[in-house]
């Protein structure tokens, strides 16, 4: 028997002449976890698609050895049968089917063509118990459970198929801190039982915690594979970007003026469960030129809070917003933009981009009237503005009229930022502005945020990455379970401080 469960040798893959992968190696032992790191577009997903035969044998070059024998799979069914299971970033649950039905989707237990629900429920219970999960009822619809729980259900589904290798693609991007903890512990247990895994994540602390070796790829080429003991997270970043990233946060001095916006006693109720309060009596102020970070765990009510300020919260809500000391009424995003409040939403794909519309037209959609007389757009003027923005934000696109969906995540995000900067807002709300954005584009987005603050814009930034919040904010609000749990000046503030406040362990106000 071979020493390795999986050996991918010299894998290359081209798309219409452009090399996406060029001579990549990846080796995984039984019971080992390999961290796979690289910027967005480095080729991680392509590599995993080669492995799972989304790109069938023959459409790429190189060799895959699975348990010592060459694997020539032509479909995902074959690789699943061999024991390779992928858990995608976006969960593939069918929300209205029960947990058990989801686990057995495609491999139902049946008796003469009729589903054997008792057997499936019992087996699902066993699988979940194996994962040390006891609070999931397999007979209930999957939508009853949070993202973290659904992640566990996906793993149970993989175990049901006797997976020997589990590929986790950004599994924690939508999970709360406790859910991440549970998942990481679970992976460690599974490792101890001999399951191998490939862990793809931008969250290097997680990679460092559970991986035995780390493989870094950049622009489709193999940069290096090293045991985790020889690496620091800073070292991984350096390998990923190919240059020393000394300063992740390009801090610039900016003057902070008087209070621009004040939110008083904002409360929101859940859309689907109107009894539940998701934001509970939150008040705060933001000043001219200030970068105010909003930290908290996923689900703490941060997005609900800021979308209420922007007039975009669909559920019932209460509270008042004061601009320059005068109360304003914001009933819709349109009112907000008019009042000088803009927001870059959390979910870029769902609520940020107009996918089949050109990049340029995406950027100008909020300010079209500026280029129009009697409703007719002066394309000349519009194009001039678009090109200036593309240059200023360093958006990489072959043509400003290319559909935005064909751009990388970082460039899409820059275009969405541009859209919300063009109306010259006085208050700019950024909800997770760097989610799914690679390190290089992140740096540029931070630079933009500082430039905005310097120009006197009040920036309100919600982020789940504590290092980011601490790296760029002047002041940090901590929200926990819908309540304001802390309002700290960002001076020697540590992650522990913020996390403790978010979890409700301290109540002091700085």
């Amino acid at each position: 028997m071979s020493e390795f469960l999986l050996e991918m040798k010299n894998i290359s893959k081209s798309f219409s002449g452009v090399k996406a992968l060029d001579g990549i190696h990846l080796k995984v032992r039984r019971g080992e976890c390999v961290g796979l790191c690289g910027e967005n577009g480095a080729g991680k997903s392509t590599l995993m698609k080669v492995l799972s035969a989304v790109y069938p044998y023959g459409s790429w070059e190189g060799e895959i050895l699975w348990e010592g024998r060459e694997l020539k799979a032509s479909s995902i069914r074959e690789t699943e049968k061999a024991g390779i299971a992928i858990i995608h970033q976006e969960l593939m649950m069918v929300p209205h089917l029960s947990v058990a039905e989801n686990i057995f989707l495609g491999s139902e237990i049946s008796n003469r063509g009729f589903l054997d629900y008792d057997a499936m429920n019992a087996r699902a219970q066993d699988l979940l118990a194996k994962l040390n999960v006891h609070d999931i009822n397999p007979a209930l619809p999957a939508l009853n459970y949070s993202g973290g729980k659904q992640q566990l259900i996906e793993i149970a589904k993989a175990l049901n198929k006797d997976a020997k290798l589990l590929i986790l693609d950004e599994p924690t991007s939508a999970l709360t801190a406790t859910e991440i903890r549970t998942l990481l512990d679970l992976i460690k247990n599974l490792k101890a039982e001999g399951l191998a895994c490939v862990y793809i994540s931008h969250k290097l602390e997680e990679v460092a915690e559970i991986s035995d070796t780390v493989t870094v790829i950049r622009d489709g080429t193999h940069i290096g594979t090293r045991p985790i003991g020889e690496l620091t997270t800073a070292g991984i970043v350096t390998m990923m970007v190919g240059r020393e990233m000394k300063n992740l946060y390009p801090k610039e001095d900016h003057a902070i003026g008087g209070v621009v916006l004040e939110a008083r006693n904002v409360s929101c109720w859940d859309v689907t469960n109107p009894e539940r309060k998701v934001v509970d009596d939150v008040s705060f102020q933001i000043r001219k030129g200030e970068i105010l970070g909003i930290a908290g765990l996923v689900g703490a009510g941060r997005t609900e809070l800021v979308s209420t300020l922007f007039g975009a919260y669909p559920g019932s809500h209460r509270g008042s917003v004061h601009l320059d000391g005068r109360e304003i009424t914001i009933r819709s995003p349109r009112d907000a933009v008019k009042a000088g409040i803009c927001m870059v939403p959390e979910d870029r794909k769902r609520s940020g981009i107009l996918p089949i519309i050109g990049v340029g037209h995406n950027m100008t959609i909020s300010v079209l009237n500026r280029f129009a007389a009697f409703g007719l757009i002066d394309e000349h003027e519009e194009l001039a503005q678009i090109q200036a923005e593309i240059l200023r934000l360093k958006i990489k696109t072959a043509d400003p009229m290319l559909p935005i969906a064909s751009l990388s995540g970082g460039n899409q995000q820059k275009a969405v930022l541009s859209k919300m900067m063009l109306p010259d807002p006085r208050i700019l709300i950024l909800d997770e502005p760097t989610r799914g954005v690679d390190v290089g584009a992140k740096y540029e987005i931070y630079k933009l945020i500082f430039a905005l603050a310097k120009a006197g814009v009040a920036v309100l930034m919600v982020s789940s990455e504590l290092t980011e919040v601490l790296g760029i904010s002047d002041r940090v609000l901590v929200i926990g379970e819908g309540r304001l749990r802390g309002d700290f000046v960002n001076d020697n503030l540590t992650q522990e401080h913020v996390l403790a406040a978010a979890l409700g362990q301290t109540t002091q106000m700085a």
Partner: protein
Amino acid sequence: MTNMNLRKFLSENKIVALLIVVGLIWALFGYLTYNADTGVSGFLTARNFSNLLRQMAITGILAAAMVFVIVAGEIDLSVGSLLGLLGGIAAILDVVYGWPLAGTISFVLLAGAALGLMNGWLTAYLGIPSFIVTLGGQLAFRGAVLGLTGGITIAPVSPSLRYIGQGYLPGWFGNGCAIALFLLLAFMAFRTRRKRLQHSLRVPTPVMEVMKLVGIGVLILGFVLVLNSYQGIPVPVLVLLFVLGIFTIIAKGTVFGRYIYAVGSNAEATRLSGVNTNLVKMVVFGLMGLMAALAGLTTTARLAAGTPSAGFGGELDAIASCFIGGTSMRGGVGSVIGALVGALIMASLDNGMSMLGVDTFWQQIIKGIILVIAVYLDIISSGVKRL
């Protein structure tokens, strides 16, 4: 490689591909209706061409507005009945009450816009799916026209109203229009090119550009000469061309048009960009109602009577024209000219098959099959699944 290039060219210039289809259909009918004794093909005469265009005018007027409805991600199933209702009202005002033409036209157009806005309001502001709202409208409007007319044909309408549906424009007027249109298109092409160059954007080669203009010029010239050699441009065709021009400008050059495509591409993102998406949708339905009114007036004028069954099934012809013309079911994609060529294809099939004496039931079967094939061809030529 040339195969790939051709495919790319056709998927980027869908309209050319559609015109080739029109050419093929015409060639086929021309061949099938060829009479060896006279040496003339019945289908390919100026008279038939004039009839064909007049037949497609009503579907075309509806299709032009339907494109916006579908691009905005909605559907309107009520326009056939709405056309019938408004055509019936026009006939009643004209025949029974003897209203002057201007009064009849203004009232019918206003009523159409108002009913369309009502559909839009129910859809956008009350959140009732447009499929349901307009399915209800289909039943209710048809019922209303039956009630108003008492189920009988109202005739004869005044000569001035009849002119809208049956009249022809004098030859000199047609020639003048053609020259003005060509000059306008040439000027716009030149201006666009200059601006794109100024911003160092991709432009077609000068040869391509000139060829395109020459192609358009020949089309316009041929169009007018053929029609003038019969009796001149039919009034409904001129109306349709105006609608085409105005709707194309709305789609490509106005803030409102941009919003329609944005709403269809991602309504939530558009709303979060500060656009009043509900208003956009409501106005789109308002335009649809306005065009149903125009189509209703034209129908009554053409038949010289208001009939309670006018426009029956008209919504389906309009929707089919949009899809044949490359409009996406998911919204966000579609062009007015494409939908009109789609309507031309449908009208050509109707006309040609009737001329050949094909049974009506066969006509329907064939049109149904062609619709499905056309959309399938569009899917494989663009390389993207639309659903």
